[in-house]
């Protein structure tokens, strides 16, 4: 993405001097960083990793977790997607991802964390389970989604009129969820229970810049079909 010349100051040219993002084609966490950088019009180099054959650079920059995303800024590595997002927001002030008011910032951080700690694992649970276990997993996942749905009351995005940190954090809901639903045959988000979420998914998925980065759906289906086979072959349906 090219930053418009009006936005790029001499300082920003220096800051942009060396910015590298290590990612994979499908990582939902790395995608958050892609979106954040693209929304702010920041230039960077992308290194695609094959996680079955990690590069020595990745292992050097992230020896603790050996994962993507890693954002390297002037040789200094940043890890953990939400930590990276906050760093990006603090370093490049255009198109802010977080509001200014401290209690609104705390609320945004809360929902981003809830998404990663509760929503994502509970939906993954639906994907990998079968029979009665899956039914129970659906109840939990929908309880969690209920909290998320209510956060959208009166708002187009979680951040209000524009996309922000929480929207990026929940971005995976706008593409991966339907992939997982298709592969495992369960429906989690229906119009009756989650009208606001469905609308948000539409608005987010079609938003400029966001829509340019979605990984190809057919590749995702193939990938998760393979995952699903592994998980469901371990368990007999109950």
């Amino acid at each position, binding site marked *: 993405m090219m930053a418009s010349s009006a936005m790029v100051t001499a300082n920003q040219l220096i800051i942009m001097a060396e910015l590298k993002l290590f990612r994979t084609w499908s990582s939902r966490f790395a995608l958050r960083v892609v979106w954040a950088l693209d929304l702010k019009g920041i230039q960077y180099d992308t290194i695609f990793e094959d996680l079955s054959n990690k590069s020595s650079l990745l292992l050097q920059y992230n020896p603790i977790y050996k994962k993507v995303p890693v954002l390297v800024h002037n040789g200094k590595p*940043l890890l953990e997607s939400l930590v990276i997002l*906050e*760093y990006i927001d*603090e370093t490049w002030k255009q198109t802010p991802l977080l509001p200014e008011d401290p*209690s609104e910032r705390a609320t945004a951080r809360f929902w981003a964390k809830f998404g990663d700690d509760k929503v994502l694992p509970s939906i993954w649970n639906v994907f990998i389970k079968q029979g009665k276990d899956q039914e129970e997993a659906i109840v939990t996942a929908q309880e969690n989604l209920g*909290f998320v749905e209510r956060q959208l009351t009166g708002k187009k995005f979680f951040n209000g009129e524009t996309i922000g940190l929480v929207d990026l954090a929940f971005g995976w809901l706008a593409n991966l969820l339907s992939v997982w639903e298709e592969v495992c045959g369960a429906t989690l988000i229906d119009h009756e229970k989650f009208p606001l979420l469905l609308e948000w998914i539409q608005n987010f998925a079609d938003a400029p810049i966001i829509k340019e980065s979605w990984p190809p759906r057919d590749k995702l289906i193939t990938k998760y079909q393979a995952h699903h086979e592994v998980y469901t072959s371990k368990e007999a349906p109950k």
Partner: protein
Amino acid sequence: MAEDSLKLLGNWVSPYSLKVKWALKLKGIQYQYVEEDLQNKSPMLLQYNPVYKKIPVLVHDDKPLAESLIILEYIDEVWKQNPLLPIDPYERAKARFWAKFVDDKCVPALMAAFSKRGEEQERAIKEAHENLKILESGLEGKRFFGGETIGFVDIAAGWIGRSAQMAGEIIGIKLIDAETMPLLDSWFQDFLGIPLIKECMPPQDKLLEHIKELHTKNLTAAST
């Protein structure tokens, strides 16, 4: 600032509410403290934190905030004296990373080391030691994570020193090994020796009794 505009719902033994107490004390902020009985949670707590139903909850001008690290960042943004996070964005990112590493990696491993038995326990102890060693590298040879004075990570992680030491004594295994992690060990000692830190901590004997009770419960659960 009127004391009744700031309220902390906490629990005497919870390290998570302790972190918030430390931050408020460090900044000299007055507040009303409400002790919650976690076996019998108040309607107020359930109203303020319907998602997790947990403490700590900080209520400021009737706005509830939950999750200890998020509360710490809020406190730091509203009250600027004695800052917890550094100014530089990269240093801030490192601090956030280490605080998350403690909660995601160190704490679960330590809890498993304390509560499991046999091979599972051995694995957990090994993992706990490895993760603490990694945490030690985050000190970067400094006295505190915050440098010469305590900051975000010190407050986020320092509580482990006392609990892990007591838990280790009870199960007969050194969870914090002064020999293999000397810098971490002296950091714990220095941090826990600071007067305002000590003042907020639960009484030593009551904490020990509580951890012993937990251990007994674990043993009973394991044998049934």
